[in-house]
């Protein structure tokens, strides 16, 4: 394991220090792994978070018009409820707090417990659960789909609505609308190594790729021989279009998300195929994001997220934000 770090046990603590040092409009809630905006507005507050190792998610999305706080767990481990509660307390300004939770049992349970504790303190808390990953979606189990990179669209759109003064109910409705219209799927070429374990999260042959890979190395639909990226894009889009409500003539936002080690050049090559294939499907691309938004340490691979847009969502998507990673 080759990593730029000092102490494996201080990995999250040190990265959060380095993050607030780089972004002076952010600060840590002392004694916690919570990053908040220094200037809080008198509005509904948005809190998200999850395990670390997905940087810039989520602290990189804290800023005007996006999140008010991000809670960082250990690498790939959901944060504890007391941490989430600290975040809720730190950002609540009397208008209530929306929790944006990715659909993992650990995340859901820890955020839910924090919500109960906060409500016991009289803080109105609403929540939405993001489940954009169409790779795992079957009737054989009942946990539902995972939340992956499409979560960033929820932060952006709901954050902009909150910044503009929408009520907690309204922000929750808009966030849920984004979730209902966001569908993602990823793939991986090479694993990552969790610092505490020091071992690669999985093994893939030199000519293999994993289709449907989650952001913690959870497997997806199948393992397949390495293929040209245009074919890979086709596989991912086929499955996304089995779920997205986007039809010919609709407008979408596209997120081409790198998992960590994949060069931007390759993401652009993928985006070329994506834009061609969306055009062939008659879907119009309103806006495209290409880069690293929700990573898996140094995993190689990428995911595609589509958000179907309408006249309500577009202005919030385009609204200004000073979140460093948008």
């Amino acid at each position, binding site marked *: 394991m080759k990593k730029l770090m000092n102490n494996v046990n201080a990995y999250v603590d040190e990265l959060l220090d380095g993050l607030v040092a780089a972004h002076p409009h952010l600060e840590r809630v002392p004694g916690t792994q919570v990053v908040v905006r220094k200037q809080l507005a008198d509005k509904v507050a948005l809190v998200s978070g999850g*395990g670390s190792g997905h940087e810039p998610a989520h602290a990189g999305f804290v800023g005007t018009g996006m999140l008010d706080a991000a809670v960082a767990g250990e690498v790939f481990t959901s944060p*504890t409820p007391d941490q989430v509660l600290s975040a809720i307390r730190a950002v609540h300004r009397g208008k209530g707090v929306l929790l944006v939770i990715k659909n993992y049992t*650990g995340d859901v349970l820890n955020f839910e417990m924090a919500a109960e504790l906060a409500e016991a303190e009289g803080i109105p808390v609403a929540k939405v659960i993001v489940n954009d990953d169409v790779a795992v979606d079957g009737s054989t189990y*009942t946990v539902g789909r*995972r939340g992956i990179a499409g979560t960033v669209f929820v932060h952006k759109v709901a954050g902009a609505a909150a910044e503009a003064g929408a009520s907690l109910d309204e922000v929750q409705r808009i966030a849920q609308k984004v979730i209902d219209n966001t569908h993602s799927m990823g793939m991986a070429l090479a694993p990552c190594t969790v610092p505490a374990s020091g071992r690669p999260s999985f093994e893939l042959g030199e000519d293999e790729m994993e289709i449907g890979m989650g952001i913690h190395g959870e497997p997806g639909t199948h393992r397949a021989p390495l293929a040209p990226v245009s074919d890979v894009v086709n596989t991912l889009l086929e499955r996304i279009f089995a779920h997205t409500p986007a039809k010919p003539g609709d407008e979408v936002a596209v997120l081409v998300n790198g998992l960590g080690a994949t060069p931007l050049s390759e993401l652009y090559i993928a985006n070329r195929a994506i834009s061609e294939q969306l055009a062939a499907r008659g879907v119009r691309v309103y806006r495209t994001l290409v880069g690293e938004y929700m990573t898996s340490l140094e995993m190689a691979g990428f995911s595609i997220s589509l958000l179907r847009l309408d006249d309500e969502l577009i202005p919030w998507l385009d609204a200004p934000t000073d979140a460093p990673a948008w």
Partner: protein
Amino acid sequence: MQPLTAEAFVRVMDAYAQVLAEFRDVLNELDNRIGDGDHGTNMARGFSAVAEKLKASQPTTPAAGCQTVAMTLLGTVGGASGPLYSTAFLKLSAAWNGRADVDEEALRGGVAAALEGIMARGRAAVGDKTMVDVWTAVQRELQTEQPLDAQRAVEAAAAAALATKPLTARKGRAAYLGDRSQGTVDPGSLSSALWFAELFAAMSEGVVKPQWDLSAL
């Protein structure tokens, strides 16, 4: 069965922390096969903090001890298992409130309440290949066998853990594996069975704790 005092409870939790340190890699390995490989790390981190907290706070009742366990787990474990074990101990604490020690009847009520809490929080049913399978097995023993045979209860917990092996997970991270989750014992079930072994051994002399054949997990 001898009633569990506050001191005995602290000893149980101390012994359990040691067992978890021993089983950390085993639990991680099971979780690695069907989850994200951190169940051993999570549990060892949480319960070593619990053992220290209990030593420092010297609870005067089992209920107070359980309260400390619940709060400590809440702030140290994270993941799926953190809130679930925390909920279990919170429910045990509520069930045992006002008692100096825990007798068989209190245990019956406590385990039922804890299981209900775990199920309410995690929304898993028996057979979903989670710790619920083990807690349910123990709860059934407590319901059906009165007075309880502690050795049978320990073995029922172990058997329930082993019985998760062929199942397809329907809750938790392992569920994303679908059929590929078959063939591995659920790590949370094993960690629960390990706890019941310590608990019953403390409440009944001569209980023989299960020998785990690691290659069979």
